[in-house]
Every structure is written in structure tokens, then in C-alpha cells.
């Protein structure tokens, strides 16, 4: 018993020394520490200033560029090499592996102050492997509209880019408010079937697509579901008879695309699905395809504005989501506006227009 008491006491003492030692070192080096809450809800202590970053998610990388902090990035996930035009300055940074399973050895070698990953990916191994090297792990998602603004502010604090974060959140908030304001005057919400990246998989509550649909003033026909990405039958969509169909595609690198054909053929396949000519959305030509680039992620506001315009064309007649996208890319990302993101671009007035 006594042995246990001694051991427990020693452990507590060791922990206290560790914490105070950490504080003393931080103070002695004149570095300020801040405590932030990351996407997992845990509190993380960060010693400022942060000068060296490894970023495992392209969502976080986009926000970092918007905060004008890309110079701090030493390492990126290997996937960004597939979209070199979108990442002209960052494509040549050290690649440290995938967003799911990076190389901890490479990261340790780069010796960053912090590493940014998603809340669930990579696994908890990341902390176990990197903390012993004195590297702080922060998990921020940047793909959920609900938490995006909070996460941008958090990152702004971490990087000492509060003003840039404020500008981005203000722009985001302004556009969110605009959508919400217009929505107040609309009468009713159209029924919407959202198809996720896989055929006949919809997006239920808990998914980014459901959130965007609600924000844009649509009623997701899967809103009563209990899982985020359930499989459904084509007959169910027929029975629900939605006014609008939205297809999110996993096509990537849409920034470099100039041809509308891939998106058009996805739409044509949906229209040609057996018996779907009986669905209101298909009959009215209201079947839209949206690229993964603006579907959830930091650009979800642009995707949501497209949705709002498709759902309530009369109330958003003066708003062109492409302009919003252009403003975002040129002002915050400092790259030229280009690419193909939606099809069809215009809200169809009559069916014959589409044929």
C-alpha cells in the first residue's frame, strides 16, 4: 500500500515538474503559450510564434493560404501534387505522405512546430509518434460549415494572423447572412435528393451535404435518416419525387479542367436512369452536378450559394455564385479564377433549353 502511495506521489510530482518546467522554458525563451480547442474538443497548448508547419489536409492548406501564411509551410500531403495548378507555390514543398497515413520520419526530420491533420485522420498514432519529438499535433477539419469559422479564428490565433482570419470570416459571414436573409422571404423549401460521391448513396443528417442543403433553403428528402451516407434504392427517390437532384462528384482537380463534358455526362447518366423520367426534377431539368472542390470544405459557402440559386432562382437572380468564387480565389487564394465546377451553369427555364 505504502509503495503505491509513494509511486503515485512521485508520479504527481514528476508531472508537476514537467508542466512547470515547460512553462519555465516557454517563459525563459520569452515565448508566449496559448491554449486552443481543436476539432476533437481537446485543449492543446501551443508555444508562439509558430514558424514551421506541416499540413496534412488540403482543406487546412487552403485556409492557410487564405491567411497568407503559406510561407510557413514546410511539408504537405502527397495528394496536392495531383492539382499543381491550384497549388503553384506549394506543389514543390516536401511531400510527407497521405492525409491518412503520413511518414512520421519525414515529419520529424522537417522538425515543424505544429502538424495539422483532420479530427479523425491520421489516427491517434500521430500524437504518440510526434509528441516525443516536441512537435505539437493540431486537428482541424475545415470541412464542416458549422465549425469552419471557429476553426479559421483558431488557426488565425495560432499563426498570428488574426487580421487575415477576421477578413476571411467577415467575408464568409457576409455571404452566409446574405443567403439566410434572402431565404427568409422564400415560400417553402423544395424537396431535394442529394447524391453523394457513390451512386445511390445519399447524405443524411451529420453529413456536410445535408448541412449545405439546409442552409441553401432546401428540404433534404433524407433528413429523417439516422446515418450520414446511407445507401438508398432508386425507387425511394421516385417515391419521394424530389423537385431538385444534386449530384456531388468525386472528380478532383476541377481547377485545371476546361471541358464541361465530364460533368455533363454524369448528369446525362442520372437523367437516363431507369424510370427516373417520372421524377419532377428530371422532368423539369433540375438535375445539377457539383464538383467536390466546392462541395463541403472551405469553399462550401460557394457550393451553398449555387444550391440556394438553384433552389430559389427568383430570390437569387442578381447573385452569380461564379463571381463569388472568383472573388474568393483571387482575393483570398491569390490565384486566377478558372475551372469547371457545376453543370448546368444556368438555372433551366424550360426543359427544351437543356436538350
Amino acid at each position: 500500500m505504502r509503495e503505491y502511495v509513494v509511486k503515485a506521489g512521485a508520479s504527481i510530482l514528476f508531472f508537476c515538474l514537467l508542466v512547470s518546467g515547460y512553462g519555465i522554458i516557454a517563459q525563459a525563451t520569452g515565448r508566449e503559450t496559448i491554449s486552443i480547442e481543436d476539432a476533437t474538443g481537446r485543449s492543446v497548448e501551443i508555444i508562439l510564434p509558430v514558424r514551421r508547419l506541416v499540413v496534412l489536409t488540403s482543406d487546412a492548406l487552403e485556409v492557410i493560404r487564405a491567411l497568407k501564411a503559406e510561407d510557413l509551410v514546410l511539408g504537405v500531403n502527397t495528394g496536392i501534387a495531383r492539382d499543381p495548378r491550384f497549388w503553384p507555390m506549394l506543389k514543390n514543398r516536401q511531400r510527407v505522405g497521405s492525409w491518412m497515413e503520413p511518414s512520421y520520419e519525414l515529419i520529424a526530420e522537417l522538425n515543424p512546430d505544429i502538424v495539422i491533420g483532420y479530427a479523425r485522420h491520421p489516427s491517434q498514432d500521430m500524437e504518440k509518434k510526434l509528441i516525443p519529438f516536441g512537435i505539437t499535433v493540431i486537428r482541424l477539419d475545415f470541412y464542416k460549415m458549422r465549425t469552419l469559422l471557429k476553426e479559421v479564428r483558431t488557426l488565425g490565433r495560432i499563426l498570428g494572423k488574426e487580421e487575415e482570419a477576421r477578413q476571411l470570416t467577415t467575408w464568409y459571414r457576409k455571404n452566409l447572412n446574405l443567403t439566410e436573409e434572402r431565404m427568409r422571404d422564400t415560400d417553402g423549401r423544395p424537396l431535394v435528393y442529394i447524391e453523394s460521391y457513390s451512386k445511390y448513396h445519399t447524405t443524411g443528417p451529420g453529413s456536410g451535404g445535408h448541412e449545405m442543403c439546409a442552409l441553401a433553403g432546401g428540404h433534404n428528402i433524407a433528413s429523417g435518416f439516422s446515418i450520414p451516407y446511407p445507401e438508398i434504392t432508386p425507387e425511394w427517390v421516385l417515391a419521394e419525387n424530389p423537385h431538385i437532384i444534386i449530384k456531388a462528384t468525386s472528380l478532383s482537380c476541377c481547377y485545371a479542367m476546361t471541358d464541361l463534358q465530364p460533368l455533363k455526362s454524369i448528369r446525362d447518366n442520372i437523367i437516363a436512369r431507369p424510370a427516373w423520367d417520372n421524377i419532377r426534377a428530371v422532368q423539369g431539368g433540375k438535375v445539377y452536378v457539383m464538383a467536390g472542390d466546392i462541395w463541403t470544405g472551405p469553399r462550401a459557402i460557394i457550393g451553398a450559394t449555387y444550391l440556394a440559386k438553384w433552389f430559389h432562382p427568383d430570390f437569387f437572380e442578381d447573385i452569380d455564385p461564379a463571381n463569388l468564387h472568383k472573388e474568393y480565389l483571387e482575393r483570398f487564394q491569390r490565384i486566377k479564377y478558372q475551372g469547371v465546377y457545376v453543370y448546368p451553369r444556368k438555372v433551366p427555364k424550360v426543359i427544351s433549353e437543356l436538350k
Partner: protein
Amino acid sequence: MEDICQQYKSFTGKKVTFMILLTVAVFGVALIAISQGPSSVGFKDSFAALFRDAGLAHAIVWKLRFPRIVMAVLVGCGLALAGTVFQSILRNPLASPYTLGIAASAGFGAVMAIVFGAGLYSEYLIAGNAFFFALVSSLLILGIARLKGSTVETMVLAGIAIMFLFSSLSSLLQYMGTMEEVHEIVFWFFGSLSKVGWKEIGIASAMILVPIPILWKWSWDLNLLAAGDESAKALGVNVTRIRMLGVVLASLITAGAICFTGVIGFIGLVSPHITRMVVGGDHRFLLPASALVGAVLVLTADTLGRTLWAPQVIPVGIVTSFIGVPFFFYLLMKKTREYW
């Protein structure tokens, strides 16, 4: 002597009865399946719609429910037949389209199309690639067998090695993929019958049905093969040819069954076993009965999967194991004699 004849007749009668029961079961489950769905087209309407040639109910029954049922039957038959052929020609109770890497390589083909097919996006690209790689793996097995002799051990080991190779290649592509692509890949591996229409059925049925008469013709040879390569050879069976061609045909059937639907596990392994326990090892009965067992299992699994938690669908690849495993255990416990 008369006693043996009587016993043979009675056992044959039992086998025929089993097959009739299975056929009735396929039609019974199909009738239930055709009347089930989230729309208001109920039991009576769906049958009436079968004989009408217009209207929404007709479209629902003929374009959505019926193709699903036909594809479930086809996939079930195909996987079960392929499993039976693999187990027989390799004389191995663990052989199936999965243990031999055919499904893993088809999966790799699909994953490849999902990850690299950007810009060329097409469901047929995914299905075509899955089909192509399923055949590539069977050709690899054959190649190795040609070099090192077509013994059972060589082919089974080659199959297992190929399974690991293609599983790793799929994992590699998944590892390289974006979040969106990983999402799509995961769902492909669940298997789904929602994706099929008459066009897909046309292609799949050609691949599944064309090899059937050849396999049927081989029934006696497959029976003799069970006694060992030496005995079969002594009785005039061209063992090498049957083994090589058998792998190609069973792979073709597997590729046809899974290229449009994704991975539907377990059927190819368990249907032949369930059937063997009841009808024994005579391939004249084993092949058709096994196909019928596969059809009943997949059709039941899909019908349950889309009605239990409607309108959300539990992917058929998951439900097949849920209903197949308990049934398999039940038979395994009940069976007192060695059946293999």
C-alpha cells in the same frame, strides 16, 4: 443389389425434391421482393403492373424492382457456381472467388478506375476495369500453373498470392486517393444491387450464362476429379485441360457477377458447402442446386437489406454474411457425417 438401386433412387428423389424446393423458394422470395418497396405500389398493384404496359407502377415494377430481382438471382447463381467449380477442380473446400484473388483483382480494377478515371468518369469504366482485372488474375494463375504444373497446391497458392498482391495494390491506391475517392471505394467494396438496370443485366448474364452448359457437360469429369488426379486421368479425364479451362470459366462468371454490383462476399464459399451437405458430391445435382442456393441467399439478403431499415438500405454484401453464416453453422452442427 436391388437395395442399392432403391437407395440410389431414393437419394436421387431427395436431390430432385431439394432442387424443386429451391426453385419454389426462388420464386417465392421473388414474389415477396417484387411487392416490396418504398413507393405506394403494394402487393396487388405490383402484380397488376407486371401485365400492364404503361404508368408509374409499371415503370417501378419493370424498371426498378424486377431488374434488381433478376440481377440478385444471376449474381447468386454465378458466385455459387464459380465457388463450386473452384472447390471441385482444386479439390479444396476453402477455394472460392475470394480466396483465389479473383474478387480482390476485380476490386483493384474498380479502385483504379475510381482513382485514375477522373475526367473519363463512367460507371462502365469501373465495371469494365473490374472485369478486365478479374480475368488478368485468372490468367496469372494459369500462367503460373503452366510453368510449374497444374497441381492443386500450385494453383491455390498462386491464387492466395494474387489475392494479397491485388489487395495491397487496392490499399496503395486507396492510400493515395483523396477523401472523396476513398469514400467511393469503400462503398464499392460493400456491394450493391441498386446500380443495375436491364442493360447491365444483359452484359452480366452473357458472362454468367454462357459458360454454364460447358460446366454442366463436365459434371461427370468433375465427379471423377474428386477421386484424385491419378484416378481421373486413368478414367480418361483430361485433368490439366479441365483445371485450366475451369479457372477461366469460373473467373468469367465471377467477373460478370461482381463487376456491376461490387463485392458480394461469402456466397461463393458457402453455397457449395450448404448444397454438398444436402445433395452430396454428384455435380449433375451439385452445380444446379448450388446455383439455386446462391440465388435464394442473395435474393433474400437483398430483399431483407432493403426492407428491414427502409428506406435506408443495408448493403447486400453485408447482409449475405448475416444470413449465410448462421444458416451454415446450423447445417454444420446438424450434420453428423463427413460431407466433403
